[in-house]
């Protein structure tokens, strides 16, 4: 009797171990990592209206960083933002809204009026794509530098050192992806694919399926 119990126990352990390996190798579910909390902020947008991090809870938000006086050839974040915005229909998002926020690191020159004109020039839909900044420079540096981990520095001659990049935040205010300098694939393609992965997780991870999604987090099954 004892022998059968023991054999049964070994079989169960074996199946669990093999299942865990199979899960890791075949990755039936892929997720985006929960990197860290997105910073809280209180910005002024292109219409002079306040925009806080709480306003955008429950939405996927794609952040980008720039300043309108960036001289050519400036790393052009707006191309990628425009492409993502126009191709958003390709992704199955369910009913989850997506917002775009472009943060200017140059509040002296990028007043709401300047940002408004810049946005219009890019053909941005201001209900979905906002251009924001704050005149509190210490706060701006903390939000962008410490919160979004994006480096910028005023060079003093009207130019800024700025590391180009995008940050994707989910509806709970957790940073799920960062897009830094890379030569692998077009940023827009990756961002669109990641939005789909996020939407799938939010819609499907209920009940028992939630355990499978948590397993994907535990086994680091991250979408490329």
């Amino acid at each position, binding site marked *: 009797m004892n022998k059968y119990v023991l054999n049964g126990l070994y079989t169960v352990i074996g199946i669990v171990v093999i299942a865990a390996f199979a899960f890791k190798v075949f990755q039936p579910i892929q997720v985006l990592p929960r990197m860290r909390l997105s910073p809280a902020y209180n910005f002024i947008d292109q219409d002079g209206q306040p925009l806080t991090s709480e306003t955008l809870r429950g939405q996927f938000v794609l952040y980008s960083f720039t300043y309108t006086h960036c001289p050519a*050839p400036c*790393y052009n974040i707006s191309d990628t933002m425009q492409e993502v915005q126009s191709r958003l229909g390709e992704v199955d998002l369910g009913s989850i809204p997506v917002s775009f926020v472009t943060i200017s690191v140059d509040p002296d020159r990028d007043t709401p009026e300047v940002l408004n004109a810049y946005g219009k020039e890019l053909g941005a839909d201001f209900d979905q794509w906002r251009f924001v900044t704050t005149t509190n420079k210490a706060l701006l*540096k*903390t939000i962008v*530098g*410490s919160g979004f*981990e*994006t*480096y910028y*520095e005023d060079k003093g001659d009207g130019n800024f*050192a700025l*590391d*180009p990049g995008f940050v994707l935040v989910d509806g709970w205010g957790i940073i799920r992806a960062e897009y*830094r*300098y*890379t*030569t*692998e694939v077009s940023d827009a393609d990756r961002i669109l694919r990641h939005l789909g992965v996020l939407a799938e997780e939010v819609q499907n991870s209920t009940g028992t399926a939630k355990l499978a999604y948590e397993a994907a987090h535990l086994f680091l099954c991250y979408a490329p």
Partner: protein
Amino acid sequence: MSTQKMHIDSYERNWMIVSAVLLVLFATAVSVAAFGLGIQVPAPEQRVDPRTVATDPNSPWSNPGLREVAPGKYDAYILARAVPTWEYLPKEMTIPAGSSVSFYVTSSDVQHGFKIQDTNANFMVIPGQVSKLTITFDKPGTYNFICTEYCGSGHGVMYGAITVTP
């Protein structure tokens, strides 16, 4: 019906038990370190093209060095290379005590290593990949960093230093 048990010498059995216990201990230690204490091994952070990473103006490694992203928080973009000479760019960095530095290290040619003495930073630098690790420097002093992967005849002179001022 009698089943004959295989004879195992008691010394051998004891060794087998000790090995099994060690495996369980290590698995527990790794699990606690990874999930409980949140210790992470340096992981590939992003992919870059080693042929252009040092020259592309959009690449942070075209202008390697220390950047203050927020008060007391730094990013160090370090390029390890064997051509034209074996060196790290930059070779020297100075930060105040208490700073937290995220190292982003990549190579423009062959495989290198990166070890900062008196810290737990020690990782491979692989062309095409970026290795990232964050270290907080609380004690003032000089922390030398050296290449730990044999990368050619100049391997021995490949070093640099981080000065932590009080």
